[in-house]
């Protein structure tokens, strides 16, 4: 590949470099600000450990829910045509561009104690308010569109030709889904799940508005960081670095799975 003419103007490279710096410098600044002498103590405190554990648990559960509901949604959007589909897709993807606080308020008036469904849920003995379930709901709400969006794209790219072949070979719709469609878009599902997990892990606004903040129950890592900032900025910085590390790890693992899966 060496010596192939790319036709790229030099100034483009300069602008690209400026953009890259804009993303990289703040992360560097964060790392530089870490008080390494107290780092271990800060990130292993009770509250930090509880927040990290809660974040991983809730994000994992949310990702599972995203896959469970997002795969059928993406499938329905990619493989069927019906009136109002474009409107429905826009609505489904809305949380992507919605400020998370707005999402939190919307959830509040749906699942909250005086919300649309909250009363009926309470009759059934389910009280979501201030529970870990509320955190999972908030995270799923903001993360689900990521999975739907990335998987719908993968399904459209994959097309229906393999599915048609499988059907003529005698495979019923469920068998086609299980043995052909899903394995073919596995990379799309994995990358969608990773995006969802990352979004759930970083979720702050909707959780704060809808779920509250209590150690070990609803106070996830981002909420803990925000609170620590009030009294101990060093702890906030140390926890931020932990969150960055988890994010990097997730992206790296996903990349490996993706690479390993590529033909």
């Amino acid at each position, binding site marked *: 590949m060496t010596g192939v003419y790319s036709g790229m103007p030099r100034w483009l490279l300069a602008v690209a470099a400026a953009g890259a710096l804009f993303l990289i*410098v703040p992360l*560097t600044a964060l790392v530089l600000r870490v008080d390494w002498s107290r780092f271990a103590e800060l990130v292993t405190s009770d509250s930090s450990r509880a927040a990290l554990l809660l974040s991983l648990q809730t994000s994992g559960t949310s990702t599972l829910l995203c896959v469970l509901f997002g795969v059928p949604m993406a499938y329905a959007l990619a493989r069927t045509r019906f009136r109002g589909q474009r409107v429905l897709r826009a609505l489904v993807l809305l949380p992507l561009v919605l400020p998370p606080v707005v999402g939190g308020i919307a959830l509040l008036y749906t699942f*909250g*104690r005086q919300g649309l469904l909250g009363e009926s849920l309470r009759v059934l003995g389910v009280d979501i308010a201030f529970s870990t379930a509320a955190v999972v709901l908030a995270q799923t709400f903001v993360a689900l569109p990521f999975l739907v969006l990335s998987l719908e794209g993968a399904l459209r790219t994959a097309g229906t030709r393999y599915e048609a072949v499988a059907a003529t070979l005698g495979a019923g719709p469920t068998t086609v889904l299980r043995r052909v469609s899903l394995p073919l878009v596995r990379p799309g599902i994995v990358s969608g799940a990773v995006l969802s997990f990352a979004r759930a892990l970083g979720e702050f606004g909707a959780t704060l508005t809808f779920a509250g903040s209590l150690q070990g129950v609803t106070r996830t890592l981002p909420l803990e960081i925000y609170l620590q900032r009030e009294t101990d900025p060093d702890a906030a910085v140390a926890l931020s670095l932990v969150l960055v590390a988890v994010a990097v790890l997730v992206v790296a693992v996903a990349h490996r799975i993706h690479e390993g899966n590529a033909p």
Partner: protein
Amino acid sequence: MTRRLRRLVSAVVVFALASCSNTDPATDGVLNVYAAASLQAPFEEIAAEFEAAHPGLSVQLNLAGSSDLATQIIAGAPAEVFAPANAATMEQVAAEGLLASPSKTFATNVLTIAVAAGNPLGIESLESLTEPGIATVLCAPQVPCGAAAAAAQEVSGVWLEPVSEEGSVTDVLGKVSSGQADAGLVYVTDVDAAGGGVDGVPFDAAAQAVNTYPIAAVGSSGDPASDFIDLVLGESGQEILSSHGFGKPAQ
């Protein structure tokens, strides 16, 4: 190496900020007042009065959480007057040697129990918050209203089991006004500012967990800053503050 890099980065940032705003207090006729968000209503009135008395001078109010403001001032923000919601935050700034004069207490605030408008559950005291089925929301101990709530529990000997410890008064009020929670501990002035959505239920121990508001001039600020502080401490400033529910400091 690390330090040099850090200095370089901050130099870039300062340069970027400097090119956006003029920060010289002597020439621009603007007085920068950094005040706790809870002071919004009274300070807007005081600022108007100050501007009326000082033609050609305008007051720029920067209203935010006290610790956010302290962080900004320590990072070099052009504050001339600082009025946080508690003494501890003022001490952080003082410890950096950034105060032009010792701080003075100009107002007090007491906790109250915020409940849904009309108090449908009939909550009368701290004790009623311990009844089963009552969802109480507090501020986290890390923020001033949470520290005050902790003190109130200590004094009264009533221990609450909150369903959530929020990062700000606004979040506590939000949970109560939306019906998610039945009660929350906030300042009297917060209930006052929240409008009709919530009512306040006073309780005994509140008087023993009084929060004080300090004020001080910052850095090399000039006469306008001390004039503003005088106005706040003076009779008309105190009148405005008390009309919004703030208490007078003990002499």
